[in-house]
């Protein structure tokens, strides 16, 4: 399965990144491009718990395609959320179920961000996403 164009572009830039500083800069750039949530979407119902930061995840399905929005008060986490969304945006349930997101973050050189011990919350976001998609 070929990557969505935005995901491919993100992968290209992360593959070229040298060192933690460049990766952090890229993450911040990605985060700045994340579509902002409306205030009403930053509600308790959309909160992802298990993160030390405030994180919201909004999920809806249109014509069989999943649409996600996400936000956080922490900047680098917004970058990680943006990298997640470019990979999953617009997939249908079968595609989403088949997708190995750990592999996606590993290709980006960010696999350590997925560790359950990390308080940044990406791990919790993935769990929440899987829950929301499976009950909808």
């Amino acid at each position: 399965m070929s990557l969505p164009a935005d995901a491919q572009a993100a992968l290209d830039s992360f593959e070229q990144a040298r060192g933690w500083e460049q990766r952090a800069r890229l993450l911040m750039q990605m985060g700045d491009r994340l579509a902002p949530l409306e205030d009403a979407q930053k509600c308790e119902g959309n909160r992802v718990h298990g993160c030390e930061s405030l994180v919201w995840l909004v999920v809806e399905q249109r014509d069989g395609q999943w649409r996600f929005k996400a936000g956080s008060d922490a900047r680098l986490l917004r970058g990680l959320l943006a990298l997640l969304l470019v990979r999953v945006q617009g997939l249908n349930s079968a595609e989403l179920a088949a997708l190995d997101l750990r592999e996606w973050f590993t290709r980006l050189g960010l696999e350590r961000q997925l560790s359950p011990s990390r308080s940044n919350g990406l791990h919790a976001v993935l769990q929440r996403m899987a829950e929301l998609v499976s009950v909808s």
Partner: protein
Amino acid sequence: MFQPSPWRADFPAIDALQRQHQTYLDSAATTQKPQALLDALSHYYGHGAANVHRAQHLPGALATQAFETSRDKVAAWLNAAESRQIIFTHGATSALNLLAYGLEHRFEAGEEIAVSALEHHANLLPWQQLAQRRNMRLVVLPVDAHGCIDLDQALQLIGPRTRVLAVSQLSNVLGTWQPLPSLLAHARAQGALTVVDGAQGVVHGRHDVQQLGCDFYVFSSHKLYGPEGVGVLYGRPQALGLLRHWQFGGEMVQLADYHSASFRPAPLGFEAGTPPIAGVIGLGATLDYLASLDAMAVSNHESSLHQHLLRGLADRDGVRVLGSPQAALASFVIDGVHNADIAHLLTEQGIAVRAGHHCAMPLLKGLVLDGAIRVSLGLYNDSEDLQRFFDALDQGLELLR
């Protein structure tokens, strides 16, 4: 000026971590272990493990002897009058739960339990839940701007209805010593039982439980350079006599029938099931090691590093230290920067510090913060560790700003 730690080489993991480019500044969460502990564990498992207080065979006798010798060492470390005043638990958390359940039968609806606003969840939630079970009132003693329990208010709030006062000795978030002598004396005069959470305090300096005058003192082995899975509960003999048995099982029983049983007094009556034998023996070896050090030199080293840490934080724009830390650690936030972001960048640079609420959510909420970064020191840290932290902090801030 470089300040080395004369004890760094006694902790093999520090070297190993350094080879992985990790600077360990999270000792308030758990500590690295001295070689003496590794040797004791290896000796125990390598020479014949056995259960304690059960078998007449030689391995059983040796294990029991080593186990009980550790109890003597803990008693000596705290200056408890007798070894039987030391109960081994599975951690500070389980010691505090033992107290909350063991004392429950003594309390009535409407009576009060006093804790401070800066308690770790381990010394808050067992009492909060006890208060809910018994319809008691949980009284929260406020903390002043420096991060110490406000003594004037506390002395007003602790009164004749107070049945238990449970407070930390040294705050795990603010690094402040709490005014225990006045608090404990007042609480005892009001007829309350006193519980001191020494999880952080026991690691810095020697504390004499008889001088402290508390009914119970609790600490955790793993924060004192010992193994995990072992906690210590010290109690005054009269106070231990008030405890109801809590967990039931092997070895805590005197006589058992199908429908009734009688139980042993402390300490064994409160050590149901197989205890963490190797861990207890390991803690004994750790205490031997710590007792062999020049206590004054350790204390000077720690306070000098702590000053270095505070100076470095004060020198940096926008850094706000929580409270006025006196020992061991400092927590801080940075104006305009999310603590998760700075934590992320410190991690990227191999700096092991703690970010978040430090198991004290109500305290952080009271300070109107959703988290903070905590740097905490052990006796193996040196000034280069702090320099690496400061360099990483500067680099991270440059990137974020």
